């Protein structure tokens, strides 16, 4: 590869905390790599794990799921649901050899713009080390 590998990331962010945190990163002009595309959900607990499968199978290099800090969920406990689902999801991905280490679950509050920007930088760096996700080629569905 002549060009440096640029990982492509999908982020599923909850409306109340993480999406607001990403907004704050914007208003604060915190620069981070343009490798992420954000899908807004109302709650991290509303994320069907199938979307993560889909993203990985399509060749997405990394998936970030962002929710409110424990105890802070706008819907009482959606983030706990997300935490359990992601734990199960990761163990299945591991079993299947599907890149469980390409999935991140992070708590980012509405006041943590810097944490959002930092998270994206960290994921991009990590994925650059891991290299491209080859699932799209090998599964070819």
């Amino acid at each position, binding site marked *: 590869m002549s060009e440096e590998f640029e990982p492509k990331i999908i982020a599923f962010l909850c409306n109340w905390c993480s999406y607001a945190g990403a907004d704050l990163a914007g208003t604060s002009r915190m620069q981070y790599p343009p490798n992420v595309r954000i899908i807004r959900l109302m*709650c991290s607990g509303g994320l069907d794990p199938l979307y993560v499968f889909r993203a990985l199978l*399509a060749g997405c290099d990394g998936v970030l799921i962002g929710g409110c800090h424990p105890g802070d969920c706008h819907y009482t406990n959606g983030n706990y649901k997300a935490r359990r689902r992601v734990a199960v999801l990761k163990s299945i991905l591991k079993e299947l050899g599907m890149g469980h280490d390409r999935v991140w679950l992070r708590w980012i509050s509405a006041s943590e713009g810097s944490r959002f920007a930092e998270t994206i930088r960290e994921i991009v760096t990590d994925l650059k080390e891991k290299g491209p996700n080859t699932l799209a080629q090998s599964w070819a569905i």
Partner: protein
Amino acid sequence: MDHKQVMVIGGGIAGIQASLDLAEMGVEVFLIEQQPSIGGRMAQLDKTFPTNDCAMCILSPKLVEAGANKNIHIITNAEVQSVEGQAPSFYVKVLKHARYVDETRCTGCGICMSKCPVRIPDQYNMGLSKTKCIRIPFPQAVPAVPVISKEHCIYMQKGKCRICEKFCEEKVIDYEQKDELLDIEVGSIILAVGSQEFDAKLKGEYSYGTSPNVLTSLEFERMLSASGPTQGHVLRPSDQKEPRRVAFLQCIGSRDMQAGGSFCSAICCMQAAKDAIIMAEHLSNVDVSIFNMDIRAQGKDFDKFITRAQTDYGARFVRARVSSVEINPANDNLRIRYDPNDGGPLREEEFDMVVLSIGLQTSEQVRKLAAKLDIELDESGFVSGSPFDPVLTSRDGIFACGTMTGPRDIPETVMQASGAAGAAASLQAELPERRIKADYPQQRDIRGESPRVGVFICKCGINIASTVDVPGVVEFALGLPWVEHAQELMFSCAGDSQRIIAEAIRDKNLNRVVVSACTPRTHESLFQGTLQSAGINPYLFEFANIREHCSWVHQKEPDKATEKAKVLTKMAINKVICLEPLSPKTMPVNHDALVVGGGVAGLTAALELANHGCKVHLVERQEKFGGNFRDVHFTMDGQPSQEFLNALIEKVTSNPNIHSYLNSDIAEVKGFVGNFKSKIHGNNNDEITEIEHGAVIVATGASELETDEYLRGREPGVVTLRELETALAGCGTEELKEKVNKAQSVVLIQCVGSRCDERPYCSRICCNKSIKNALKLKEQNPDTNIYVLYRDIRAYGLHELDYRQAREKGIIFIRYQEDDKPVVTSENGALKVHIFEPTLRRKVLIEADLIGLAVGIAAGSENKVISQMLKIPLNSEGFFLEAHVKLRPVDFATDGVFVCGLAHYPKDVSESVAQARAAAARAMTVLSKDTIEAEGKVSQVRAECCAACGACVAVCPYAAIEIDEINRVAVVNESLCKGCGACSATCRSCAIDLRGFRDEQLVVAMEAIVEWL
């Protein structure tokens, strides 16, 4: 007469906010503005501190809302002639000047403006550019109707031209239009006419007016703005080159006995820091120096902003008052001379450009209006209300807000505006009757139509367009399936943009709309309203966030940002095609309120709500009301202050609408806006009281920090300011009282536990508290030597006058640096303070009989519990985080919950009262309604797929789903569903979906991403 009418005089952000709040409470408003458009000073600002949010972007939706609200009558180009009568019946004569254009029929197309041959200086751009004699004042103006300037119009002056009339298709130009005198009868009046800037020409030594390269801060603000004279490019006026070195000179016309005002203008330090940051973003290679006397960063997150300006953007803060600015004729540069205050000689530096941070002053308009209305002004010409209640004036039924009550920033202005609205509305009996609903046209039935998508890409001035290739995104969108229309907009949130969107919907028969602009969290409802006004269901709309999530965070990578903007836009287009019209249910509203916290803020809020006729549950953890204010014994001018508190408590406890719960905590809050169910726990008797209410006000306060710095706790001579004040008032222990009375030398140390790594914020009130106590000490014993050791004296606004008085009375102020704090030692109880004296340039030793520590304010420890119970966020310091730091300072993103007082941030009593009034007023916008709309994006079951397994029932946090045992299917109660989507993620058979976030809607959005992969 019907008294449910209020007049708001002044259409800046204060007047607009007051009008919107009143209108939402069901009160009819007459909003009188002197200029041809509402918007005021905020409409001229580029960005706002401390978030650098775009000023027009956050103001514009409010302009549009005020213009569209049926309860608000906007009367522009008008002034109040006379006011007669008294509360609750004022008879006001309003003179509406002719604008020579028929406002009722003009479409705002702007053709007249393009054809007019006469160019005149553009006041909106501070005269830095030209506009036409017939003009719409600025692109987002409301009303978007042109005005002719009679003295410049060739036809009206010389009898020839009439070009605008010729080209006007609607035939609305009327050269014969006469001034109109309107008689309006109202129940109360809110004054919000603002202030004016200091005239920099009065300070001749700064070469303003003689060098084009010396600008005022407001002129510079226009230069930074995309809609300004240079389209947002920072260019030196003399040669149109980018400046390399720029100086900001603070306190021009502020803190100045000779010219302007001797008070502090409260906003300029932050404005300069903001301009420095924005300029550094515009120009890669610029050095900014800010010459100041103190950095006054007394507000929420202000200190962090100053630090960012220094560390991330290289702004240099120089502690000096500049004595002169001279022009270097060789290169038009500017030489400034200043005393560096370090004992050394005067210094000289040369700059390419100089910005004068001009102060705020009261205006001639304020003085005239005050005379007409017979209300009192203070010595500086600001409206002087009660020291505890800044929205009151000396006349019943007339309230004031914004910078006409003293220099203040936007959030404080907005708080006062909401507070004044609440006060004015509570005088109006029987509120809800007059509510006028927006009459949207019948929604078009789009069933059977194929998707016809309109895409609008916002340039946001240059906020988006300077990074993202907007025309490229438009072209890209035009090539996508189902897209019938795509175009760019300068500011998509402006009033004229709403008209353009609505027209495109009608002309091209669009049935779905995508706007690629900023964040749906602030602007979605605005565009939904536009869809409704064009007869389209508001849920057939999708937002792409290409500003916060793209242009602002990838400023250095324009190509990649453009690619990303295309993907984000395509995701929205894909999704909008799959959206369906929704019609939310309405729900009843419980009119009672819960107020948590019985300090001054909570008491004020409770009383205000009770005055509106609401039943209030007021919960206080301690056994007495009063909170922190119980330890505030006198005001700045030495008047006792406990009488105010006692009177307030008496009013609250004797009010039949208020139920007090002392010694109590909130044990549980369930429900949502309009329909909360809470449990109050009595800590003495362990009793639980269950209540139902429609809104919550959080007024839980904050606490004085515990500290062991400066021998506190080890030496009886080291006390907190609070203890000192108590002793000075003749309360507290005999021992301390004696110590205070006998003290010959008193040292007060500022910033104890504030502005440090652990708490990187200013506690705001301590400087003024020290000044107040120092003055009291001097009054009681004029021979006492008093030293105040400080980092910056933050005697913001009118407090500066007290600071001046303190210095005049011989109180000595010594500055110390954060890394070289004073050291307190004790030799057998004899206290000594060692400090480096910067003007003497050596260490000095002060022997002190008493040391008073200005201990900072820490967020309440129970905030975490409250925040989790009410689903409202905290900031990193533990204070509650409001919905928007500028324009929603008492709201939360969670509807029906409001904040005031120290729970939000440290503030003094008058600011707490203003915010408490604001919180009550905002709560009344909910509580005055009989019904509110429920969530539209709720879950829906596909019965044919449902196995009635009950997994959704188990995960639903609102018990909104039940199994219908007869039909064996899950059923959603749409009034209870809050739309989190937990059920849809749980369902094994994909039988339950969240509307607006359905599987197919998200999958198509993901497809746009997959193409990018």
